[in-house]
């Protein structure tokens, strides 16, 4: 399986991290082109490319930009969501580490598209090194005139402000991110109003994922048709995947959307670690419903995964083999969501907290027969009931693990221990 390297084409070039190397590799040409275009033309070209948001929801990017009203008398803002926090996901991180200027170029083009003069980079709190890399890149871009008062000689102003989060998964949710950026508690906001109309500082705002924006320079420089050469009709372009878990070669890879999971696992990931057996996998991070070996031929794109009962999400593939206990995995994942719940709404705050307790009990061998139906209820009562989608991630873990591995739950209760762990040795004092 070979895919044209697009986002990763300069990954072999260590110079691409600096502005000179990036420019030498053709960087910022798209920005020079974009300053000569009308904002409407930029939006049209991105619409034509069919680029969809890479943060998980897959919303068409050009359409999102088109929603921004320009006649409100308020400034407009571009906010880059670099709060990459989904368990199993780390491709934004490597994209930025290796080629930060591609992000800045995409950001600047997005700013031109919506008439924005100030863009914000919201960086996950734990990404200290990446924010240092970005900060250096921002300085370089200012120095070379790609940012600042006169972007690429156009007379237009674009300032970029880098803001580090304080370490909260919820701030990847766009309205919580806006709250955090404004200095408020990182909790999601009520919609409507939608950020496109009233976002940052109650002004029209576009929030885009890092990978999404890094696709933009090529779309401008090489055209929408070129972009569509790869991928599927409805999911054009390439997608970064992060494969981790029980595989031989975990890491970040760029694939054409629509590539079957089997080839990602076998060709890019090098197959199951130590020749193990595929038991379960998440296609898009821990918040996307887990699938099984039966789904190994599912194509990795928005539509195929939805049909399989899951989501592309951030395309963070976590692979589990026969030695991995599903209850244990579910417990760890749900514990993560319990820890990261912002606390605002009841089903997420209390549901994930309780589910963690019950899963712990099951895994430790203290489960009761009533716990399995209880977990069913817990999944049902958190899915689509919460203020934002965070709890849907909790529900996805519970529901999908129960859907595919109910027997394993029952076995925990029956045996009074995890079937994949040794039976505890009880020493009896003589």
């Amino acid at each position, binding site marked *: 399986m070979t895919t044209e390297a697009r986002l990763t084409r300069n990954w072999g070039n260590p110079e691409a991290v600096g502005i000179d190397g990036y420019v030498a590799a053709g960087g910022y040409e798209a920005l020079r082109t974009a300053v000569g275009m009308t904002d409407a033309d930029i939006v049209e070209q991105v619409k034509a490319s069919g680029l969809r948001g890479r943060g998980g929801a897959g919303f068409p990017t050009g359409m999102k930009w088109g929603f921004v009203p320009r006649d409100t008398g308020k400034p407009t803002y571009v906010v880059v969501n670099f709060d990459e926090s989904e368990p199993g996901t780390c491709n934004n991180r490597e994209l930025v580490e290796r080629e930060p200027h591609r992000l800045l170029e995409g950001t600047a083009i997005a700013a031109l598209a919506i008439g924005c003069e100030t863009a914000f980079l919201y960086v996950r709190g734990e990404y200290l090194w990446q924010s240092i890399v970005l900060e250096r890149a921002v300085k370089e871009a200012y120095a070379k005139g790609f940012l600042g008062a006169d972007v690429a000689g156009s007379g237009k102003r674009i300032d970029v402000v880098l803001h580090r989060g304080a370490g909260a998964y919820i701030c990847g949710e766009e309205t919580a991110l806006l709250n955090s950026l404004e200095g408020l508690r990182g909790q999601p906001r*009520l919609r409507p109003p939608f950020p496109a109309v009233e976002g940052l500082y109650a002004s029209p705002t576009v929030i885009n994922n890092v990978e999404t924006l890094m696709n933009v320079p090529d779309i401008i420089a090489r055209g929408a048709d070129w972009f569509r050469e790869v991928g599927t009709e409805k999911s054009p372009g390439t997608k970064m995947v992060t494969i981790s878990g029980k595989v031989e070669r975990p890491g970040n890879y760029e694939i054409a959307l629509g590539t079957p999971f089997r080839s990602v696992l076998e060709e890019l990931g090098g197959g199951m670690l130590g020749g193990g057996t595929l038991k379960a996998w998440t296609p898009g991070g821990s918040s996307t419903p887990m699938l099984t070996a039966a789904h190994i031929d599912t194509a990795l794109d928005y539509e195929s995964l939805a049909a399989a009962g899951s989501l592309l999400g951030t395309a963070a593939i976590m692979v589990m083999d026969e030695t991995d206990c599903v209850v244990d995995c579910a417990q760890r994942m749900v514990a993560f969501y319990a820890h990261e719940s*912002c*606390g605002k709404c009841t089903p997420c705050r209390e549901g994930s*907290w309780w589910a963690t307790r019950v899963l712990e009990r099951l895994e430790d061998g203290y489960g009761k027969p009533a716990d399995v139906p209880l977990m069913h209820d817990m999944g*049902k009562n958190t899915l689509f009931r919460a203020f934002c989608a965070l709890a849907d991630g909790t529900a996805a873990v519970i529901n999908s693990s129960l859907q595919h591995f109910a027997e394993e739950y029952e076995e925990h209760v029956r045996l009074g221990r995890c079937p994949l762990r040794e039976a505890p040795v009880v020493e009896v004092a003589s």
Partner: protein
Amino acid sequence: MSSAPSSGGAIGRTKVDLVTLSIDGNEVTVPKGTLIIRAAEQVGVEIPRFCDHPYLAPAGACRQCYVQIEGQPKLATSCTVTVAPGMIVATQNTSEEVREAQVANLEFLLLNHPLDCPVCDRGGECPLQDQALAFGPGESRFTEAKRVYPKPIPMSPLIGLDRERCVLCARCTRFCDEISGDRFLELYARGAGERVSIAAGEDLRSPFSGNVVQICPVGALTATPYRFVARPFDLTSADSVCRHCSAGCNVRVDERRGDVVRVLARDNPEVNDAWICDKGRFAFLHDDAPGRVTTPLVRDHGLEPASFGEALLQVADACRQARVGVLAGGRLLDEDAYALSKLARTVLRTNDLDHRRMAQPLAVDRRAALSAVDRSRAVTYRDLERAPVILVVGLDAEQEVPILHLRLRKAAARGARIVVVHPRVTRLRDVAEHVVCPPGDEARVLGGGVDARLDDALAAVRAAADAAAILAGERPGAAAAALTTAAATGARFAYVTRRAGDRGALAAGVHPTLGPGGRRLDDASARAEIETVWGPVMAADAGRDAIDIVRAAAAHELDVLYLVGVDPLRDVPDAALARRALQNVETVVVQSLELGDLEPFASVFLPAASLLERDGHVSDWEGRSQRVRPLRSPAGISRPDWEIFAGVAAAAGADLGFETLDELHDEMGRLLAPHAATDEPIEPETPAVRDELTLCTYPLLIDEGRMSEGTAELKAALEEPAFAEMHPSDASARGLADGLGARLRTDAGEATVAVRVTEDIAPGTVFVPFNQPGLAANTLLSGAFTAAVTVEAADEPEPAVAAAGGDAA
């Protein structure tokens, strides 16, 4: 001036678009933008809720109010979704899925709830308890350990927090953010560890703090004075109106075995929304205070208990052929004020009658009196919500009429531009522009050319004409200046006096020049109108105002001083003069709940029934007359004031003409109805001669006043010791620094208090609160509420703190 519409409050009324939808099969039509949960209330469907509150912005936090909207795959929270035409909504009453979701959510909410209802103040009136009882599971599936927190955690001396009971609905934090603006409470941490908290070392120091207790949907926030005091089903309640200020807040008073134990706000969107201030909520001990006297007393050798008949005869005898001065306090009911006005004019035959704390030019009083009888002349709370621009002149709303302060904040949130002209910056500072000027300088400042922002605002007022509102308070000169501005711009005007009975007393004519309905007694035709109802009244010569009545008494020019619910020693802006007045009249009649400091002076005491024991009306600053209902019958043999006045008349051989409340109301209706009246011309104020330093004083909300007595927690939370506030330029010129003692000297006396140095006061002004612990400011006054003052350092500045203590080598 303005062509006022026939009913009050018509500023900026707009046409409302209506939306029709179906809820559980019932069609309902509501204004566009209505939330589903509110629309459901219209058809009698109560959707369970915890975080939703009609006066707070939607939160969608508790997730209890799910409904099914046809065509939508997920359940929606009815507290966050607005209605749409043709929407088909199913609630828990018709959708099993909704019901199940609500039960499931309730199960989540109860996981960590301590279920300590039997010892919880909320038990019996708790939404969580009610819903758990109505459709919660009988048994919990939760078997692990619950979250535990230390409790109660004091948020202030008044408010305790039990985090275990909290359902994290954020009503309290939203109240602080959205309504009071006193942002003390915040959610801390996240997930299951999220909790309500307050910054370390901070107190919830807000005069509106008690509201968070009332809106808490569980027993998480409790009021210290009510903690473990009563079960709701042991309480007897009555709907009343708060008597602490002129805001007119609707309250419910709860009594347990004869003692008032709690006051709650009643929801009235025309007046107080759902809020009351902490004084209204917690200062309720006065009626049951140990000093209450419920039997008439007559001085023989000492003050001896007497029958009402005996006491009334004594009063009638003393007043016969005597020069009588009548002073009334600020908390009479409308009926009392009317009866007193009639008693004075027709029986006691005196115009030396006044209730005012602060004399104003006649034009101001008359405007206020007319607005009470003709509401089309009034400014209402609603008007403020719709006004594009509001001027607040000489009024510290937060301290004087707290609920008006909240309404001004609401107006600001809706886009009103508010400019406050006042000697001090007020707590509207985050939503209003402030123009500070020394007391008495308002006329000059409002005249234009002094402050560019104000001039700009005045242009906006002129443009908005009668959609704009000007509110004037009691600072000397402020009301006259504000009325002049209102007349010049066409803005609506209200004179906002502080005390609950002020407006009713003005309307009834407890005033030296005005009779009932704002009629001038020296105007022949107005006088004739009065006489058709009252018969012959007192001669037309203008009476003395309050301070002159006291001066006349002190100068032996009066024989009788009839004091109705007033203590001149505390209220008159010259304490020494008041004492001389009480000593120098023949007879002092005290009609009140208590004798207090008047005990040595009283010749006769007439016990009045308290507001809680009364049926009648109270008029708020708007002029809105609201009914109060009795919680209980009068204590002892005390009587409503108006009955006592009728008794005095009868004892004097006269007849006030009413024996029942209905008869009294009939008569009041004849004189206190709208009538043709032209506004009094307002003569421009001559700016006061500026002294180098002017003392300015007004009462703060929680002070040493009688009404707050015995409220230890309230005082601990909100009462400040006496201080003198000065501008840095004035302070540094006198070698004063923040926190140091200052000696204040006026013609009347001197006092030493701690200085507060702040930029938030007009240069040249020294503010001293009227009656805080440590200083009764009327000992520094000579008949007016301002005085020339000199200030000097009272102590040597503290030496710079020497390095470390004894163990430093």
